[in-house]
Each structure stands twice: as C-alpha cells, then as structure tokens.
C-alpha cells in the first residue's frame, strides 16, 4: 500500500471533518443572526465583535450544564441516541466531491475522500439510517413527548425518503452513473442538472427540508405541541449533539443539492479564464462553498418565514403530492431519454 496515499486521504478526511464541524458551529451563530435580521433585531452581538465568539460560549455552556438522565431511561440507548445522530451526520461528507483535483509534483490528488461507484446510494443509505439516532433517543427517554417526537420523525423520514429517492433516480437516469464525482464532472461549466430537472430539484429541495427536520417540517421537535420533541429529556452536551447534528445535516444537504443540481465545483465560463488546473480547482471549491452558503441561507430563510405544517398536512403533502409528482417526473424523464436515444 502506498503510504503517501493513506496520509493524503487521512489529511483530507480530517480537514473536511474540521471544516464541517466549524461550518456547523458558525451556522448556529448565522442562524441566530439571520433570525434577528428577519425580525428587525440585531441577533447575538455581545460575545466578541458581531457575536463572533457566541458559538464558543454556547459550546462552553453546554459542556458545563448538568448532565441529566431520567431515572427510568434506558441508560445505554439514552447515550447511544445522540452519539449515533452525530456519527451518521458526519458520515455523508466522505463521498461529496469538494473540488476537482489538485496536481502536486505530477501526482493528481482528488478532492473527494472516496469516489465509490455507488456514491448516491451511499448517501441515500446514510439518510435512511439517520432516523435511528432520533428514534432511539426519543424512546430511551421514557417520556411521552419524546416518544411522539421520535415516532413523528420516523414516519416523516420514511414518507419523504420515497419522493427523494425518486427525485434522485431521475438524475441517475439522465447521467447514467451512480458516482457523485462523475455526476458533478458531467455538469461542466454551466451545464447544470437543474436546467434539465427543475421539478426534480424542487422535489429534492422539499424532501431535504423534511429529512433534516427543518422548518416548516420540524414536527419531531415541535415546541408548541411536544415541549422539545425527541430531545425533551436531554440536557448538556447530549442535547448539544442533537442540535449540532441538525446543522451538520443542513450543511451536507446544501452540499448535496449543490453537487447534484447546481454543478458542484463547476461554475460558468470556467474554461475561458485561462487559469492553471490547480487555481481552477481552488476557484471551483470556492464556487462550491458559495453555493452551499446560498442553500444554507435558503434553509434559514424558509425557517424564519414559513409556519410549521400540521401533521396531516405533512403526510398529505408527502404521499399525495410529492410522490405522484416524483413518479410523473420519472416517467417524463424516461420518455424524453427514450425519444432522444431513438433520434
């Protein structure tokens, strides 16, 4: 085995892990700032300039809070819940192409940790097991609100996974590959998938909101009805893990949307700039992060605009609107591809 390869992959994985953690950390601050701005307030601005130290203060506070565990809780599962949520949230970043590649000393280093040939399915599998952390935590708390939150999370996830899967299938049909690296590489320049799959993009976006438990689909932790939902009984850093995982999920979802539909690290007129390969890759990674930032902003924008769905409305939207639309989208894509191949 080539040791430099292992070291390079290890470094890349560490860097991406740190980036996703820092981004998620500051996403909490940006979320609160945005909430403030949307409501004509300033948001947190006391800890450091513009509240730049607020995430650290929050983290410190969570660490020093009392660790509380309900007497009748299932001890092992109670701890397993938040850990699992965090672990699963961090797993997806392995297959996202964060940039094309960098050439150092004649060797090409890809900026994707693992370009497995079933990248999309891997993401989908991680998504589908993401609900375990919430369900286990909600059940182990031995609290009615937590249980209801967990059950809501489970049924919501299952319902929206179907439509999301179908939205992804159209992308797979179009590109003819399951590898995320290749899907992004095919959207070279301005040839983004969103121009061919506007409906698919829209379905994916709505399902991404539902899968990350973000408003208007945040029923599992609906404060008005369920106190805190699945994390009612959690405190200290265990609660912090749940809240933090939500922001990591948001970051990963934004990255997925950008790479599936908005060309990932590709940006318009990238061939006309006449830059070297390495400079272009770095610029591409920057473009990718700009896209991620935009979708992160969209997540927050929607959260502070739209009211929460009622549970029956959520189910109706999932089963009776999104899934039929997704099926129609698959059929239309299939027909267009068939006509194209016969011409």
């Amino acid at each position, binding site marked *: 085995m080539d040791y430099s390869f292992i070291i390079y992959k290890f470094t890349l994985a560490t860097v991406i892990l740190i980036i996703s953690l820092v981004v998620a950390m500051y996403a909490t601050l940006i979320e609160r700032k945005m909430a403030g701005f949307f409501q004509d307030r300033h948001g947190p601005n006391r800890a450091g300039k513009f509240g730049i130290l607020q995430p650290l203060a929050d983290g410190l506070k969570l660490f020093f809070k009392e660790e509380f565990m309900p007497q009748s809780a299932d001890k092992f599962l109670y701890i397993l819940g938040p850990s699992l949520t965090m672990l699963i949230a961090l797993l997806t970043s392995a297959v996202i192409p964060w940039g094309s590649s960098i050439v150092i000393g004649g060797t090409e280093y890809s900026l994707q940790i693992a370009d497995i040939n079933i990248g999309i399915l891997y993401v989908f*599998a991680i998504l589908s097991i993401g609900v375990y952390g919430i369900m286990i935590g909600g059940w182990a708390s031995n609290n009615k609100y937590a249980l209801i939150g967990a059950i809501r999370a489970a049924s919501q996830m299952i319902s929206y996974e179907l439509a999301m899967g179908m939205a992804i299938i159209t992308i797979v049909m179009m590109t003819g590959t399951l590898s995320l690296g290749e899907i992004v590489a095919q959207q070279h320049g301005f040839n983004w998938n969103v121009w061919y799959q506007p409906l698919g993009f829209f379905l994916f976006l709505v399902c991404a909101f539902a899968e990350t438990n973000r408003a208007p689909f945040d029923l599992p932790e609906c404060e008005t009805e369920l106190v805190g939902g699945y994390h009612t009984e959690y405190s200290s850093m265990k609660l912090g893990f749940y809240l933090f995982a939500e922001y990591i999920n948001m970051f990963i979802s934004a990255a997925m949307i950008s790479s599936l539909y908005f060309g990932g690290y590709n940006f318009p007129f990238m061939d006309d700039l006449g830059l070297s390969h390495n400079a272009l890759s770095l610029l591409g990674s920057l473009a990718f992060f700009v896209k991620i930032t935009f979708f992160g902003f969209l997540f927050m924008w929607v959260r502070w605009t739209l009211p929460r769905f009622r549970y029956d409305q959520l189910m109706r939207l999932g089963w009776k609107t999104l899934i039929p639309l997704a099926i129609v989208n698959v059929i239309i894509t299939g027909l267009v591809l068939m006509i194209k191949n016969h011409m």
Partner: protein
Amino acid sequence: MLSKYIFYFLSSVAIYAALMVLISKKPIHSVLYLTLAFFAIAGHYILLNAQFLAVVHIIVYAGAIMVLFLFTVMLLNLNIEGEFPKKNIIKFAAVIVGGLILITLIGTFRTYDLEIIKNPTLNQIGLVKNLGKVLFKEYLLPFELCSILFLAAMVGAVMLGKKDIQ
C-alpha cells in the same frame, strides 16, 4: 489478510447480534440487535465486493423495514411482563417445531455442494453494471413483475391515504 480479520469480526458481531435478538428481554433491544446483524451482513457483502448489494441491503432492511419494525414496537408498548403466557406445553411445542426446522435445513444443505468463490475481491458480479446486465437480460420478466408489484403497492398506499373515496 486484513479482510480475513474483518470477516471474523463481522461474523462474530452478526452471530452475537442474532443471538441477542432472541435473548434480549425488551422487544426494542431485539429490533436494534437485528439492525446490527443487518449491518454486519452488509459488511460481508462489501467484503465480497458487492457494494451495490450492501448499500441496497442497508437502505431496504436497516433504513426502511427495521424503522417500521421499531415504529410498531414502540407503539405497541410490549414491555409489560406476562404479555405472552408461557405454559410448559407451548414451550414444548416450540422446541419440537424449532428442532424440526433445524433438521430440515441441515438435511437440505447437506446434499448441496456449496461453491467456494476464489478471490472474492476480484469478483465483479456485485457491482452495479454487472448486476444491471444480469437483471435486465437474464431475469427481465421477474424483475419487471416485481416492479409492477411495488408500483401497485405504492398506488395502493396512496389510495388508502385518500379519505373520501367510496
């Protein structure tokens, strides 16, 4: 070499989890152990270079079916002691039935000549391309029939969801 150790590790995890499914007192624990067993089996698929199968296994079993199991078990609240009357005659019958099934299984597999795959990592059958070719050429009809079955089930679910259908 490494894959050999991983194989032993995954196998022991799978067997332990499978045993715990039967042994654990709480139904929720049984379900979670079953999920763990599924993950161990998915690991075996990856060792056999069948990534597609592994991921689909996780999506379908761990991601969908087991979540539904967990969902149902949570709602049923089976924690109450003495839910199932365990009379001696029932235990006796269970032992006989289980033993018979074991004998049948042993009898079936004894006559089979199990093929040992050499160099499983070079085996390409589990990759998407080969699997797709096999599915869409040799087993096209069963595959399409399955799809129609699934579609019917999905349409049925949507229909059940409709309130005001006569």
